[in-house]
């Protein structure tokens, strides 16, 4: 499943939980017969009894603490490392006064409706939820990094720290002479080989990706490519869970075009790096640009996924026309 599909899923998830009210209800005093902590919803004096049960935010107050609701959605709706467990679901249900799964569906719908009123659209709610999840992931990664550091995972190897190792590797990939770089850093080749072997071995053992992430950050911090500043800005924004402050240096049409140039080169057994070169980019430029554009996408796709999808489909069709006949085996049909 691609990122587009995931984003679509999130948007539709938020939208489908409730039939969005055309006119969001204005605040009013909560009716006496509403459950404790229910939000303020105007109810006609003559409203049928069943209408009264169609809105209930339970113990959540998303206007003041939306994170508690987003966390509950994550735990109630998903499994796995970043999802919930039977224990965490039971705790949430007890804490927020959720009776059962059926009640949870109502509570979820109601809280999304309140959030849609707060933010003006379900798309914006989706984006806020995605941003919250990004922040959670970032916090998790920072904890993993601290744990790895405490275990000595970032200790220098033969005097070569991760940042220095990454910076030299970045310079090598950037086209500088390997031997000159080592000479300039006062490192003999045997020592460099031993240090590289140990750093590679540490990364292979570190399946939490703490070292890999730190390496990637250090690699891009040392980047001298034309999009180096953009990559550094994306890393800073991700660490702070905020939007970027720089405007994208290329349009999305151009960016998807760069992607498809490489993909079609690979499909034809050609060098994707040469394909990048044909559009004026080095591999370092592409890495830095992808880091930046990828982060911009994640921070905006929730609210504008339709726009991204339209651009992507348009560029995809353009490249299919540009490279006809690349798809092989079309003779095999059911």
């Amino acid at each position: 499943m691609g990122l587009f599909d995931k984003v679509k899923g999130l948007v539709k998830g938020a939208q489908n939980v409730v039939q969005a009210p055309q006119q969001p209800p204005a605040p009013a005093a909560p009716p006496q017969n509403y459950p404790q902590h229910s939000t303020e919803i105007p109810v006609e004096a003559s409203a049928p009894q069943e209408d009264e049960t169609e809105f209930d935010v339970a113990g959540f107050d998303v206007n003041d603490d939306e994170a508690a609701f987003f966390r509950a959605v994550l735990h109630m709706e998903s499994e796995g490392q970043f999802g919930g467990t039977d224990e965490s679901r039971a705790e949430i249900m007890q804490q927020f006064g959720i009776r059962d799964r059926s009640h949870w569906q109502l509570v979820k719908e109601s809280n999304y409706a309140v959030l849609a009123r707060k933010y003006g659209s379900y798309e914006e709610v989706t984006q806020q939820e995605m941003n919250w999840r990004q922040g959670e992931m970032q916090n998790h990664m920072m904890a993993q990094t601290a744990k790895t550091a405490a275990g000595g995972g970032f200790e220098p190897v033969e005097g070569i720290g991760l940042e220095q190792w990454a910076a030299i590797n970045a310079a090598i990939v950037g086209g500088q002479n390997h031997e000159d770089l080592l000479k300039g850093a006062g490192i003999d080749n045997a020592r460099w080989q031993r240090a590289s072997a140990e750093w590679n071995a540490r990364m292979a053992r570190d399946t939490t990706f703490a070292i890999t992430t730190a390496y990637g950050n250090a690699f891009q911090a040392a980047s001298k490519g034309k999009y180096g500043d953009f990559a550094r800005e994306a890393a800073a924004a991700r660490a702070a869970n905020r939007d970027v402050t720089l405007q994208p240096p290329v349009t999305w049409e151009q960016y998807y075009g760069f992607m498809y140039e490489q993909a079609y080169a690979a499909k034809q057994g050609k060098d994707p790096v040469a394909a990048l070169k044909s559009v004026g980019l080095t591999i370092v430029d592409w890495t830095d640009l992808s880091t930046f554009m990828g982060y911009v996408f994640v921070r905006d796709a929730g609210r504008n996924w339709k726009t991204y999808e339209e651009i992507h489909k348009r560029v995809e069709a353009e490249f299919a026309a540009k490279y006809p006949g690349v798809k092989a085996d079309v003779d095999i049909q059911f």
Partner: protein
Amino acid sequence: MSAAQQRWSAFLGQIEQRHAQVRAESEQHGAAYTADDLAPLSHHLMGVKSRLQDLEQSIESTWHAKVDDVFAAEGASGETRAAAFMQGRTLAHRLDDEREESEIRILAEQARRRHDPAVSAHVLAQEAATGEWRAMRAAMRALNAYRPPAPLAAVKAYERAQIAYWRAYLTVRHRYEPAIQIHNLPFEIGSRMEQWYVTSAEFEPAWVQAGRPREPL
């Protein structure tokens, strides 16, 4: 055999045959490749991989786009349709394994000729661990095939298969990569397994209820 089943089997047969043909051509190309620069071979392999993946993916995409409707129009039972779908999925999984193994064989042959640790370490270790790797992938697919929660036996089978793979892989890899602590294999395997214990096994109720029974390393 119904007409739909015949067409489906014929389609799968064509996919399988073409996949084998493309792999064989690629392996011939790899065997004949003697240039010092591995980049052109690497690009060739990328192209082959893309083509083989397209073939594999065409199985399920064709099923959803056309085949299921044809079975339904014939009045096939849900059981029959599920069996036909699994016939395709089983083939796709096997072709997936064979694609990966084919690439490793080509690169391992290059590694043996070159005696370059940077090229050799992974591919020769992976080639040596092919049996364990296949068993591990089969165990993973078997586990994923369960609608949660999975039984403890399936979780344990995948755990054991992963450990066996890492043991076989690292035992060879350390010959080319001295940084791997072969005298402390439990540490090396354990560090690679830890993430699975924390991020996957921990969310299998049968595993937790059984007291998280980790295999000795």
